[in-house]
């Protein structure tokens, strides 16, 4: 009851001194607001990258020809990977569940009057599983079609719409670089990730792509899917060995290929996120301390201003602890209110940034809770000294204070 009355009284005095209250809460508001907004943007960015990785396939390992980029320059020959490499990896590394050679290129697509430039992906049927693609309409490739370099194509969702509009492309013939291809399937849309659209491409058998469409002898990439419980580093070491043997690379010489896995990418993103959080934590700590000092300052003023009130309260029976709790409650309420305002401001900024940046900022409940509890802690910590001063006042002196 006394507690409720005290809260009511504190709220009333905060309301009477609106400007003063807001100014003293400003430090907390800015600190909490900044942290909430930045954490939300960070969480949104992380979410997006992880979604991207998941879209690629979480157990995906990619083998590229040539040495890894160093200083922006890719050295070494880029014509090193052959379909046979992919087959021997599949047969010699048991953790590899699926593989698909990839021959990538660009092509001119034509269906009657409709013309369009799109990427061509020469792959196997397993490519769909490895890369998390799903057939929306029609079917995937058969082993026979890959064997005999069949002129069949699976269109990406956007490619299909661009060429065929609303009518079904299944069974129709589309011209790719002048060759007639039968459309056997259409992919389900996957969405745009970064500059590259997964929906604007066409899949054809890799044999057809290499020998009929693009005229290349080497692969642009080999995609592998490994068992979910497999150790990525182990598998990577194994397949590097297989490739070095196949490519007859003597010890001490560099690989003529490089391997990329999703675990590394996830790791990189997570570590960036962690650094980001740490930095934010430091910013938050500083601004909360500054905000806390603001609150302490105003509480000291309040205690002085209300010396007489403290005397009255003591005269009618409040003991030191009642006074301590009252002023502590006031500073806690002020910092918590500042925290709440800061959270709303931060959330508003996050929402606004979502509109402009194009990816959703996510205000996580955990960060809201964290910010609020920190704000309350600041209230307790910086409110304690003024509250103790209030509690220690001598009632006789306090009553005669003018």
């Amino acid at each position, binding site marked *: *009851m*006394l507690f409720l*009355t005290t809260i009511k*009284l504190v709220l*009333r*005095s905060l309301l*009477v001194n609106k400007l003063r209250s807001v100014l003293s809460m400003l430090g907390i508001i800015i600190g909490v607001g900044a942290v909430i907004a930045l954490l939300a943007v960070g969480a949104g960015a992380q979410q997006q990258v992880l979604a991207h990785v998941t879209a690629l396939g979480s157990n995906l390992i990619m083998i590229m020809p040539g040495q890894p980029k160093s200083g922006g320059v890719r050295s070494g020959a880029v014509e090193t990977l052959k379909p046979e490499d992919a087959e021997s990896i599949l047969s010699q590394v048991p953790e590899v569940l699926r593989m698909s050679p990839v021959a990538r290129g660009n092509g001119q697509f034509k269906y009657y009057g409709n013309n369009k430039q799109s990427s061509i992906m020469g792959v196997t049927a397993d490519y769909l599983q490895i890369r998390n693609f799903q057939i929306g309409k029609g079917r995937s490739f058969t082993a026979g079609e890959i064997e005999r370099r069949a002129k069949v194509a699976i269109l990406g969702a956007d490619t299909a719409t661009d060429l065929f509009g609303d009518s079904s492309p299944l069974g129709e013939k589309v011209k790719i670089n002048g060759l007639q291809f039968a459309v056997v399937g259409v992919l389900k849309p996957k969405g745009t990730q970064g500059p590259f659209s997964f929906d604007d491409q066409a899949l054809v058998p890799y044999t057809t792509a290499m020998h009929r469409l693009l005229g290349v002898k080497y692969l642009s990439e080999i995609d592998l899917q490994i068992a979910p419980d497999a150790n990525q580093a182990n598998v990577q070491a194994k397949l590097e060995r297989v490739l070095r043997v196949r490519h007859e690379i003597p010890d001490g010489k560099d690989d003529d290929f490089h391997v990329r896995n999703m675990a590394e990418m996830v790791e990189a993103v997570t570590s960036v996120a962690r650094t980001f959080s740490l930095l934010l934590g430091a910013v938050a700590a500083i601004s909360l301390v500054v905000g806390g000092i603001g609150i302490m300052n105003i509480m000291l003023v309040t205690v002085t201003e209300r010396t*007489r*009130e403290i*005397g*009255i*309260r*003591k*005269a*009618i*029976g*409040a*003991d*030191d*602890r*009642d006074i301590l709790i009252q002023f502590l409650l006031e500073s806690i309420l002020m910092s918590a209110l500042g925290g709440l305002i800061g959270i709303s401001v931060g959330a508003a900024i996050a929402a606004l940034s979502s509109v402009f940046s194009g990816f959703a900022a996510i205000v996580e409940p955990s960060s809201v809770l964290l910010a609020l509890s920190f704000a309350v802690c600041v209230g307790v910590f910086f409110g304690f000294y003024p509250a103790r001063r209030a509690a220690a006042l001598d*009632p*006789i002196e306090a*009553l005669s204070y003018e």
Partner: protein
Amino acid sequence: MEAVIETSNLTKTFLLGDTVVRALDGVSLSVAKGEKVAITGPSGSGKSTLMNILGCLGRPDAGDYILAGEVVSRLSGRRLAQIRNRYIGFVFQTFNLLPRLSALENVELPLLYGGARDARQRARAALEIVGLSERMGHGPNQLSGGQRQRAAIARAIVTDPAILLADEPTGNLDTKTGQEIMALFDELNAQGRTVIMVTHDPEISAQCPRRIHLRDGRVAELMARESR
């Protein structure tokens, strides 16, 4: 008559710069239940100090003070606050209502500190006794001086204390309102409440059947009740 207040040889000294001021120099007195007493004396006579000690706001350096059968002169801190809450009702010259609370909330406050359950009800009853039930929702700045003092008196009697301790209760009021407040004190006294009034106003003290006059920290003169 049963004594509510019993003091023996109260002394209190202050240090004012280098000089030692003996504010109270062996004050022994007793007040019976239901009495109406004025404590008078010129400024510097120690009457404020005596009032502070009687009100349990401060402690004597030496001597005993028994309030409602309890030795309070040795108590400190938390216990003393409880005594103030339970046994003493203060009425001040400047009313000392909390400005942001309504009259009702001001009257409730001692009960809240005392942990009473039916605070609102009792506060209403107290306001009714002082004749302020009409305006109990108003804040102090919406009340006249007389009404403020009535609210303050309601706050003093709401815990049903052993003594009402009034410090120049009419000092900030015009004569007519002052008389009304004095009449209210008479009424409360007639209902059996013990009233102790600290004043230097002879007109006020003249209305008290018993007067205790202080001079230089000593009781100079005790007017017997018989002289009424």
